[in-house]
């Protein structure tokens, strides 16, 4: 048995192979990371986590890139070594039938492949801890826009405590300029089960848990519509609990706030529908400010027509869709908690007509 000599030689060869593989992959990674940063991945998906448009998402994007580079390097090195070993040390056709030299171990090598990973872990941990601190412990500026987001099965309510109104399913926030940051701070609560607020291009997700208030913040740099959806399984229609964040210029945002603060339009031509809203008990769950409807179980409908979608983002807000929804909510969105209320077609038309006036 060639134990001592063979072992020393093989150890040396392994070390050389490691070193040359490391050099080769450092170069590859440099190119890879350059192209990673250069390509704009936004068109791939409206919810691409690698197309950040807000400080928390950008911080995450940067640390992700760093972690991807390190893990990528480890992958290339170990993958190459494995592939090389499997190919190089395969049993040959002309094998002499002898067992190969038996090598039982090497303390130096064990030490090497313990210390090296420890160093990598230290680096990764320190850079991660820095980002955790920066995102999580960011001080809330006094002039930040405050929103209380409450998760419900299967929709979102948004209260604006600074402006004394609440709305549902479509969150509006002002764009935040680097020179004049106006971040939005969201207090996250749950009315029933666990949910999670996730708009990938703006921030990582944060859960909404009963008896466990959370906070998250965003400062979107670009005007536009950002999509997301509930990311914690919350029951039957979890998949239909979509998120829409409208980022507006400060002026547009103020106009929107002003409009939302107004009580509901009182249009005498739809008085039949308005009466039905009471007699059919809709008011028990929904609020329409300026009327006796002050329920808190379902979405605030005061300015329903200012929204693009209904049913938590799954349907465009058209009269047909609204009518379909009222006729049988659970048929449109399985598991929806709004009950099917017994109504004639005419009553359905009247109540839809009423809701259509809530601009």
């Amino acid at each position: 048995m060639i134990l001592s000599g063979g072992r020393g030689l093989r150890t040396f060869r392994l070390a050389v192979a490691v070193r040359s593989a490391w050099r080769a992959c450092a170069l590859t990674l440099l190119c890879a990371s350059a192209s990673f940063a250069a390509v704009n991945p936004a068109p791939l998906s409206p919810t691409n986590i690698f197309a950040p448009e807000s400080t928390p998402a950008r911080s995450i994007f940067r640390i992700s890139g760093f972690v991807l580079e390190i893990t990528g390097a480890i992958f290339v090195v170990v993958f190459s070594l494995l592939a090389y070993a499997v190919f190089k040390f395969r049993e040959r056709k002309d094998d002499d039938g002898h067992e190969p030299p038996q090598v039982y171990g090497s303390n130096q090598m064990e030490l090497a492949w313990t210390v090296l990973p420890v160093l990598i872990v230290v680096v990764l941990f320190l850079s991660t801890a820095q980002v955790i601190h920066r995102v999580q412990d960011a001080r809330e500026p006094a002039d930040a826009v405050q929103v209380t987001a409450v998760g419900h099965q299967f929709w979102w309510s948004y209260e604006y405590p600074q402006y004394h109104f609440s709305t549902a399913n479509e969150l509006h926030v002002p764009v935040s300029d680097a020179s004049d940051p106006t971040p939005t701070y969201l207090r996250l609560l749950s009315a029933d089960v666990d949910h999670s607020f996730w708009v990938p291009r703006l921030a990582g997700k944060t859960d909404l848990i009963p008896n466990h208030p959370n906070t998250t913040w965003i400062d979107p740099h670009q005007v536009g519509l950002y999509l997301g959806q509930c990311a914690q399984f919350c029951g039957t229609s979890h998949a239909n609990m979509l998120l829409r964040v409208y980022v507006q210029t400060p002026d547009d945002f103020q106009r929107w706030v002003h409009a939302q603060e107004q009580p509901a339009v009182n249009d005498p031509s739809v008085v039949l529908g308005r009466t039905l809203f009471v007699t059919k008990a809709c008011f028990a769950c929904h609020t329409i400010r300026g009327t006796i409807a002050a329920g808190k179980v379902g979405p605030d409908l005061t300015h329903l027509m200012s929204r693009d979608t209904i049913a938590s983002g799954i349907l465009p807000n058209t009269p047909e869709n609204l009518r379909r929804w009222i006729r049988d909510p659970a048929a449109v969105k399985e598991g929806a908690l709004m009950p099917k209320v017994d109504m004639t077609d005419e009553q359905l038309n009247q109540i839809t007509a009423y809701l259509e006036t809530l601009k």
Partner: protein
Amino acid sequence: MATDSIAIPLPRTASRSVVLDWLCTVDHKKIGIMYIVYALIFLVIMGCEAILMRIQLARPESTFLNAEAFNRLFTMHGTTGIFFVAMPMLFGFGNYFVPLMIGARDMAFPRVNAFSFWMTAFGGILLYASFFSGGSLLHGGSAPAVGWFAYAPLTAPAFSPGHGTDFWILALLVAGVGSIGAGVNFVATVLCMRCPGMTLGKMPLFAWMNLVTGAMVLVAISPLTAAQLMLIGDRFLGSHFFDPAAGGQPVMWMHFFWIFGHPEVYILIIPSFAFISEILPVFSRKAIFGYPAMVAATAGIGFISLGVWAHHMFTVGMPSYGNAFFVLTTMVVAVPTGIKIFNWLATLWGGKIRFATPMLFCIAFLFQFLIGGLTGIMLATAPFDWQLHDSYFVVAHFHYIIVGGILFAIFAAFYYWFPKMTGRMLSETLGKWHFWIMVIGFHLTFDFMHVPGLLGMPRRIYTYQAGRGWGVWNMISSIGVIFQAAAILIFVYNLVHSYFKGALAGNDPWDAWTLEWATTSPPPDYNFDAVPVVRSRRPLWDIKHPEDPDWKYE
């Protein structure tokens, strides 16, 4: 006294005696086989559930399944996979081979062993009884729809009426008792039943790893069992552990669940490491490299894994220093895991690698486990996890570990030890078809599944809107399932066919080195004619190479 303990054989028919023999057996080999067959049946069932889900998700806004059916399927798929496929399968191989490898005649507590198996079996049957209770079978009966993690307060009677959640709780409670029994048995067997000469430092790594697994089962399953009891209390007895309306804390359930749930991952992967650590050396024709380091790394993973659970909770809103702590502990696990990979690599290095089917699965394991480990580091980076958590990236990551790692290791174990268990070889031709089709299917499904996660697709959604850019990736993942299903069919056919028609194996078909190959295939009830005496970690190497035995070097 003497007459009491003698069983008086009753006349009975041959078939009845075979059935009774298996039902009443306390033989570790029969119990092992029952665990394995039981797990195989559930593997096929959970695979069917996966197929249904992949059909549903192949296209956006598909109407193949409704929401409730889909939610039930993923709950059952996950629960079955962990508790009724992976654990019994690994316990099965452990049961069969730990006593053989340490030169014992049976497990330390044969009756506890049988009890544990039957409890586990009953748990699985109870869980699946839910399909046949209430509701229509087509929509999943009253199968649970709360996810395998069953976060409170979704499990409260207000949100989960009916008995689906109760089936889930009771099934896991019962199976958990079985698992704890198995854990006790593995620890006691390895510590007390080793043959003369086999010190702890001369045990096969297989025994070491099952020892660590057994100890972890004791520590990890107990909190789950406790949490299930609390949940039962909340649902039926008016307690308020997790009821927010009465001041209970849903977050506490998360802690209970994950202090079970994360060690559980290692309870599954460490026995898989055990398979690899036995098979890889035999087909490299070399002793395992760095045995003491492998033992230390295993024990290290066992310890550290008890302190990483809240990395499943980075989005729950822990304080920043809490998050940082769990980032650190989680990343530290990478160190002993890396040690293992490097030692396996060094075992290959300088060997003469034989590409028999068990070795093919081992090699695929190494590559796939490497990738699954590296995506694990990404998830351990808490900020990255704020994006990736509960997305399809996570689903891809842990399937890389569970299918690409654990299941591939299990397949390796099947091809390697089937000859010992049945006396017949599995077909190598079919084995290679199985391997390559499985590799193609696995990579089609799970490589491409990372992408929708990066593009913002959450888990556990039964439908998604077109225009999110997720459709094409999901379609590719679904197509991969066809290959995986075909591979499993070939595998099952191979098992059945080879059991009856396979080539005779002989005692030691792989020219291996551990004690199980020193007895007949299949081994007699008493395992060994004479209790073996060993002097090294590879007793059969010593016999085959008297001029150059291991004990001179260890």
